[in-house]
C-alpha cells in the first residue's frame, strides 16, 4: 500500500527558533516536500543533526530525530543506518558543524559511502554563536573574532568530498525551492552517501553572502550544455575554477555502500532475535578449552 503524503505530515508543532528570513526555512520546506513526494513516512525517517542554527532543523521535521553534539552528526547517522537499513537516514548541519569540527568525520563518511543523505546548510558563518568566520567564510570576512578580516582561504567542501571519493554531490540555493526539492529527492534515492550543500543565507550576521549576492554569484551547472555529472575531473574543474558558484547535481557515481561492504544482513539488526541457538555460543567457548 502506497500512502500519499503531504509536507504537512512532516511538520512538528514546535515553533522554529530561526530569525525571520533565515535561509534555513527554505531548506526545511524543501526537505518536507521531498520526503512527501518520495512517499516516506515519519516513522521510517531518522533525522540526525549537528549543533548550530541549522542543527535545530531536526526539531522541525516530524520523524525520529536526534540532535546530538557539535560536529558528530555523521558518525551517528552512519551507525543508525547500519543498525536499521530500513530507515531513511538524513543528516543535516551547518558549515561549521560539518567542515570545521566535523571535517574528519565528513571525509570518512564520504569514504565509507553509507546510504545516508547529508545536507550542509552553508551560511558562510557561525550563526548560533553570533557570526564568527566559518571554514567557508570568504577571506577578509569581518567578524567579531576576525576584526581585521578572516585570514583563511575558504574551504571547498564539495571538492574535498570529491577527492575523498564522494558518490553524490549537489549544491542548491535556499531561495530556489524547486531545484532543491529535486536535488534532495535524487540524493535520498541515491544508493550511497549523498551530499547536498545548500547556500542558506544568514540574514542576521552575514552581510556579504546575502540572497542578492547568491543570485548574482551562482549559476546552474546545466546551463552549460553537455555537463554530465559523471566525470570526476570535470566535476573537480567545475568546483574549483574561478567564477560563479555552480548549482545542481555536480557528480554521481555508483559504488557499493558501506552496509553492503560490511556484509550486513538484509533485515535490520535492530530487530535481530538476540537468542540464537545456544550451540553457536557454546562452540566459541570450546575454543578456549
Amino acid at each position, binding site marked *: 500500500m502506497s500512502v500519499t503524503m503531504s509536507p504537512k505530515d512532516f511538520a512538528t508543532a514546535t515553533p522554529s527558533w530561526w530569525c525571520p528570513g533565515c535561509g534555513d526555512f527554505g531548506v526545511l520546506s524543501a526537505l518536507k516536500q521531498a520526503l512527501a513526494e518520495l512517499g516516506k513516512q515519519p516513522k521510517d525517517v531518522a533525522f540526525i543533526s549537528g549543533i548550530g542554527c541549522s542543527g535545530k532543523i*531536526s526539531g522541525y521535521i516530524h520523524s525520529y530525530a536526534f540532535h546530538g553534539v557539535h560536529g558528530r552528526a555523521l558518525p551517528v547517522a552512519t*551507525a543508525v543506518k*547500519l*543498525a536499521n537499513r530500513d530507515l531513511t537516514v538524513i543528516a543535516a548541519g551547518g558549515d561549521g558543524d560539518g567542515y570545521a569540527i566535523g571535517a574528519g*568525520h565528513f571525509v570518512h563518511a564520504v569514504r565509507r559511502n553509507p546510504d545516508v543523505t547529508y545536507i550542509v546548510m552553508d551560511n558562510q558563518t557561525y550563526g548560533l554563536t553570533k557570526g564568527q568566520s566559518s571554514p567557508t567564510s570568504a577571506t577578509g570576512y569581518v567578524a567579531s573574532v576576525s576584526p581585521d578580516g578572516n585570514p583563511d582561504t575558504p574551504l571547498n567542501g564539495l571538492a574535498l568530498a570529491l577527492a575523498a571519493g564522494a558518490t553524490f554531490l549537489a549544491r542548491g540555493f535556499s531561495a530556489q525551492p524547486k531545484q532543491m526539492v529535486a536535488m534532495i529527492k535524487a540524493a535520498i534515492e541515491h544508493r550511497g552517501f549523498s551530499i547536498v550543500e545548500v547556500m542558506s543565507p544568514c540574514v542576521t550576521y552575514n552581510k556579504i553572502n546575502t540572497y542578492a549576492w547568491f543570485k548574482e554569484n551562482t549559476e546552474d551547472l546545466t546551463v552549460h550544455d553537455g555537463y554530465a555529472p559523471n566525470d570526476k575531473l570535470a566535476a573537480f574543474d567545475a568546483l574549483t575554477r574561478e567564477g560563479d558558484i555552480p548549482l545542481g547535481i555536480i557528480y554521481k557515481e555508483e559504488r557499493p555502500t558501506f552496509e553492503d561492504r560490511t556484509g550486513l544482513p538484509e533485515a535490520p*539488526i535492530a530487530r535481530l532475535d538476540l537468542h540464537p541457538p545456544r550451540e553457536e*555460543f557454546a562452540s566459541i*567457548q570450546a575454543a578456549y578449552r
Partner: protein
Amino acid sequence: MIVNCVEVMFGGQAGDGSLTTGDLIAGVFKRMGLEVYTYKDFPSRIRGGHTNYVIRAGEHHDYGMADAVDGLVAFDLEAVEAHIDEMRPGGFVIFDNTSETIPDEVRRADVTWYEVPLGKMAKVDLGLELVRNTISLGVLGALIGMDPEIIRHDVRGVYQRKGEKVVDLNMRAIEAGENYVLEHFGDRPSGYGLVAGADGDRLIMMGNDAISYGALVAGCRFMAGYPITPATDVLEWMSKQLPKFGGVVVQAEDELAAITMTLGAAFAGVRAMTATSGPGQALMTEAIGLAGVLEIPVVVVECARTGPSTGMPTKTEQSNLNHLIYSGHGEIPRVILAPGTVRESFELTVAAFNLAERYQLPVFVLTEQALCQSKATLAPLDIDKVKIDRGKLIDDGEVVFGEYKRFAFTADGVSPRVIPGVPGGMHLAPGSEHNDAGVITENPRNRARMMEKRMGKLESMRPELPRAVLHGIADADIGIIGYGANRGPIAEAVQRLAAGGVLTRFLQLRTLWPFPDDDIKEFVRGAQHVFVVENNYTGQLMQLIRAVVGPLDALHGLRKYDGRPFRPIEIIEPIRQMAEVAQDDTAEVI
C-alpha cells in the same frame, strides 16, 4: 622441597616469539590440571625491547603474580639484569649463553643457574634460530616436570597449520631441550614436582576475551572502536564473531566517531558498545554526557593503562576511575562495574548491558591491563544463566503519537523508549534540556525536574547493582578494600596473613558507581584499620571512601604507580607490620 606451584618468567626481546611460547606454557599447565594466571609485560614497540611473560601455575586459583619469580627463562643478559632481583631465593635461571655471559655481580648465589646454548642449538643443530623458544620449553619442562606428552600435543596444535615439517622441527627442538637437561643437569634437579591434576572441563581466557564473549551473549550486535592498547583485543574479537551473528563492527576514524556511532546504533535499537583505553576514553568525554542526557543505553569498556597522556601504553594502572565518575561538564547518571576475575569480566559485562537498557544510561566496564590482557583458568561459563532484560523498550507494535512521551516522568526515572520505525513514536532526542516530550525548553522548573528524573535513576537502580564480595574472616579487625586486578593479590594476602595469624577481611568492590556507600560504611564499622589498595598515585578510591566515612586515621592507602601490578607480599608486609604495632590497640574506629 617439592612444590606443586611455580611462577615462570619468560624474558627476551619483543617480537621474538615469547608471546607464543608463554601461551603454550600456560596451556600445558592448564591441561595438566593446574590453575594458571599470566601477566604480560611488553614494551610499547613491535620488535626489540625487553619483554617478559609471567606464567603462574598451582593448585590454587590466585589470580595474580606470586611474591617472586621461581624460574626465569632468560634469552639475553638484559632479561637477567632486569629481573634477577625479583627471583625467589632457591629459584633458578635458564640462560641462553650462546653469545653472552653472566657477569659475577649479577650471578646471585642463592639461585641455580642453568646455562644452555639455546641459540646455538637452534641455529647449528636444528638449522632455525626461531626454534630456540621451543628448545627452552623442553628445558623448562624437563627441569620442573611438565608433562612431556602435553607439551608435544600443544606444540603440535600451534604449528600444525604451518605443515608437518615445521611440526617435526619443533618436536626435535623439545627433545633437544629435554636431552640437554638430562645430559648436563640430571633428572629434574630444580625441586619442582608439578603433579598433573584432573583437568575437568576448564577454559583459559584473557579478561578481554571474557568481556567480548559476555557482550556477544548479552546481545551486543554493534560495536564501533578505534585501536588502542590494551583494548584492541575486544575490537578484534568482536570483528571476528559479530558478523556471524548478524551484527557489525566498525573501525572508526577516531574515538569521537566510535562513541557517537555507538550512540547512534543504540538510539536505533541495537545493543551497542565500544571499548577503549585512557586516551580514547578522554576523547569520548563529551559524547558520554550526550548519552546521559538522551538516556541512551551504551556499554563502554575501559581497559585502563598507565597514564597520563601516552604514559606507558602497555602497562597497568587504576588511574581512570575518577575520569569515569567525574568527567564531563554537567551531571549525568552513569554506572561503573569493575570485574576482578576473568569470570567476572564475563558476568559483569552481561550485567552492564542489562543495566544500560533497564536504566537507559552509559555503563562502563572498567578493567585494566593486568586483568584484561592476562589469561586465567576458569570453569566453563554458564550461558544458560544469561538473561537479556531490555527494560522499557518498545521495539514492536505501536504507540499513540501525542500521548507517547519519550522522556516521561516516572517513579523510577526510566521512561518507555521506542526505537525508530515504531509507528507513533516520533520525537526529538535533543542534547539540550527538554521536556518530557523531547521539546527543547529552558524553563527552570522543568530543568530541575529533569535533573531529578535523570539523576534519580542512580538511586532506583541500587538493588540491582552487582554487590561487593566479602573475602576472608567476616569479623576481622583489619579490613582491606580494593577492586579489579588487585582482587587476586589481595585475596591471596588475606589467606596468607591468616595462615600467619593475622586475620583480615577484604571487600572487593564490583560496582564502583553509584558508589556503594552503605557497603563501605558497614564494612568499615568495627574495623581497627582499613587498607585501601589501588594502583594509582592520588588514592582515587581512598578519596571516595573518605567522603563516605570521613578522613579517619585508621584508613591507610596502599598504592603502587610504577605501571606494575601488586605482588601479594607488597600487601602482606605493610599489613603484618601494622598488625604487630597495633596489637594492643583494640578500640573500634566507628
